């Protein structure tokens, strides 16, 4: 019940910041927002029912139909981490006070929407919260009003609206058949009418809509542009959370709680996931722009998540969730590194960079660790989650997909190594002699995210028991 706090507090914070009576400086806003993120992160580790009656009464007026689940709590942790990283990057990158203030407000709104998304038990509310997140994302991408950002935001808007339309029509058809939109009603209906072609068509439409939002090939057209053109803190936030939650988390939630697994739908998931993995990796190999390459890498990794999820067993779902968490962490880390590069070097074409490892040691080390985690090298966390996905596929008798997943790791290593050589190692290009390490906020975030990756990787057995199993069996 107290989870509605997770939604309400950011909302109230935004309200509080924007009262017309006073002005709050950007720095204070940043501070309060990061405090909230830390609190949210720690709330994952606290027991469920810690409330106090006064707050309870106050909150009961605003109560929405919330229920908590293990997966939701894990997503709370993830979103808190990514939002924290994003806010700190913002603090380091933007100098204007007003801009910081605007950013923080928008991020808090977005966070409210996301937290709401994690707890709803109703398909239509899912739609509402997805729209909340999307709306704030459109503004966030275009907030600096440069040409590329506007274009990217516009494309995102158009494609996301098409996705919304598809989702809504699917909700409508499900509503038609089920008579209600909460999860319980719909799942009962699905068990009864699941074979009906209309219902299957509705489910397929819903999945396609979620694929568009999540950036699975071939429905991913907006994604590279948006990741590329957004300002640095927004890239961190976008890559780390928005695509994952609106796209993939919703998919997992739907299939875990509402629909069961169906062989046909499973094969849809698997095929598109493998296309996404392979083509995403291929497209990333020859990229010249750092952020664009990271965007295609995201597409590839999201493919892995959906692949793990498509295995159909509980083990597969656990693997997918774990990989989602890991991917949020290390992708955010990579985008933080790109923010550091952008701030210090001011060149985004990779072929013009070179040999920066000696000048920016923290950035290069953390980027190496992040890429090792992406490629799935033990003992980092990415290895464990990839291993779980491959094992889930293998035990579910889908050996072909497991082989594809393993072979794609080679491609991952390829673009990773190319990028490392181009940017960080190699000879120092002229003009880069005065490059210094990024400011403290960015390095602090890099080290924090890197530490999370390494610790989760090393303490994997505890993580497995503590987080994942409780998440899945809750």
């Amino acid at each position, binding site marked *: 019940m107290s989870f509605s706090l997770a939604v309400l507090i950011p909302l109230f914070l935004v309200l509080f910041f924007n009262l017309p009576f006073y002005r709050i400086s950007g720095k204070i806003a940043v501070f309060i927002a990061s405090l909230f993120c830390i609190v949210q992160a720690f709330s994952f580790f606290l027991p469920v029912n810690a409330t106090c009656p006064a707050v309870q009464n106050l909150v009961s007026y605003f109560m929405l139909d919330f229920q908590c689940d293990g997966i939701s709590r894990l997503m709370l942790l993830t979103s808190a981490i990514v939002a924290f990283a994003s806010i700190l990057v913002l603090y380091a990158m933007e100098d204007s006070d007003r801009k910081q203030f605007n950013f923080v407000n928008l991020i808090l709104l977005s966070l409210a929407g996301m937290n709401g998304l994690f707890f709803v038990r109703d398909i239509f509310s899912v739609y509402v919260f997805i729209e909340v997140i999307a709306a704030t994302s459109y503004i966030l991408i275009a907030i600096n009003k440069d040409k590329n950002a*506007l274009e990217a935001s516009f*494309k995102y808007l158009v494609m996301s609206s*098409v996705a919304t339309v598809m989702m809504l029509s699917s909700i409508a*058809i499900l509503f038609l058949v089920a*008579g209600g939109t909460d999860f319980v009603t719909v799942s009962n209906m699905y068990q009864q009418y699941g074979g009906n072609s209309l219902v299957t068509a509705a489910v397929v439409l819903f999945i396609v809509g979620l694929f568009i939002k999540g950036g699975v090939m071939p429905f991913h057209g907006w994604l*590279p542009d948006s990741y590329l053109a957004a300002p640095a803190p927004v890239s961190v936030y976008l890559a780390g959370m928005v695509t994952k939650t609106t796209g993939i988390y919703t998919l997992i939630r739907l299939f875990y709680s509402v629909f069961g697994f169906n062989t046909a739908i499973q094969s849809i998931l698997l095929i598109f996931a493998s296309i996404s993995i392979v083509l995403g990796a291929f497209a990333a190999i020859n990229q010249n722009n750092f952020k664009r390459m990271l965007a295609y890498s995201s597409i590839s990794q999201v493919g892995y998540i959906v692949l793990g999820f498509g295995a159909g067993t509980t083990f597969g779902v656990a693997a997918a969730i774990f990989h989602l968490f890991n991917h949020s962490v290390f992708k955010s880390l990579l985008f933080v590194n790109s923010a550091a590069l952008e701030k210090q070097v001011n060149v985004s074409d990779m072929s013009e960079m070179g040999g920066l490892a000696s000048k920016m040691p923290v950035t290069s080390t953390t980027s190496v660790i992040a890429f090792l985690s992406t490629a799935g090298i033990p003992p980092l966390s990415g290895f464990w989650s990839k291993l779980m996905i491959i094992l889930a596929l293998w035990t579910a008798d889908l050996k072909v997909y497991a082989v594809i997943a393993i072979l794609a790791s080679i491609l991952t290593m390829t673009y990773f190594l190319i990028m490392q050589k181009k940017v960080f190692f190699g000879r120092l290009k002229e003009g880069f002699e005065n490059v210094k390490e990024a400011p403290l906020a960015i390095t602090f975030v890099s080290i924090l995210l890197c530490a999370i990756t390494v610790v989760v990787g090393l303490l994997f057995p505890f993580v497995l028991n503590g987080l994942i199993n409780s998440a899945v069996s809750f």
Partner: protein
Amino acid sequence: MSVENILLFKLYIIATPVLFLVGIYAIMTTRNIIATIIGIEIMTKGVTLLLASCGYFNGRPEMAQSFIIIMIVVEVVILTISAGLIFNIVKKHDSLDTRNIRNLKG
């Protein structure tokens, strides 16, 4: 559902995709940014129609009504945001042509 209902249902079931198709066609083939937004709106109206009809045939029109109202509110927000985007795009490029926003490639 009775016989007239089924006929009506079929009518709605055909009308809605027509709206969708018109909307998608508008988005894909226009060269005017504002026309793109109008295409989105057409599709949204199609969904509204579908929702209303589903609510009617379901026997729960009031639930559908609340859904539609929420949906319209959200759409308005999205529309406002898109208007802001278009405004800034036009300020940068001085034209309403979609060919200006094909810059990011590769």
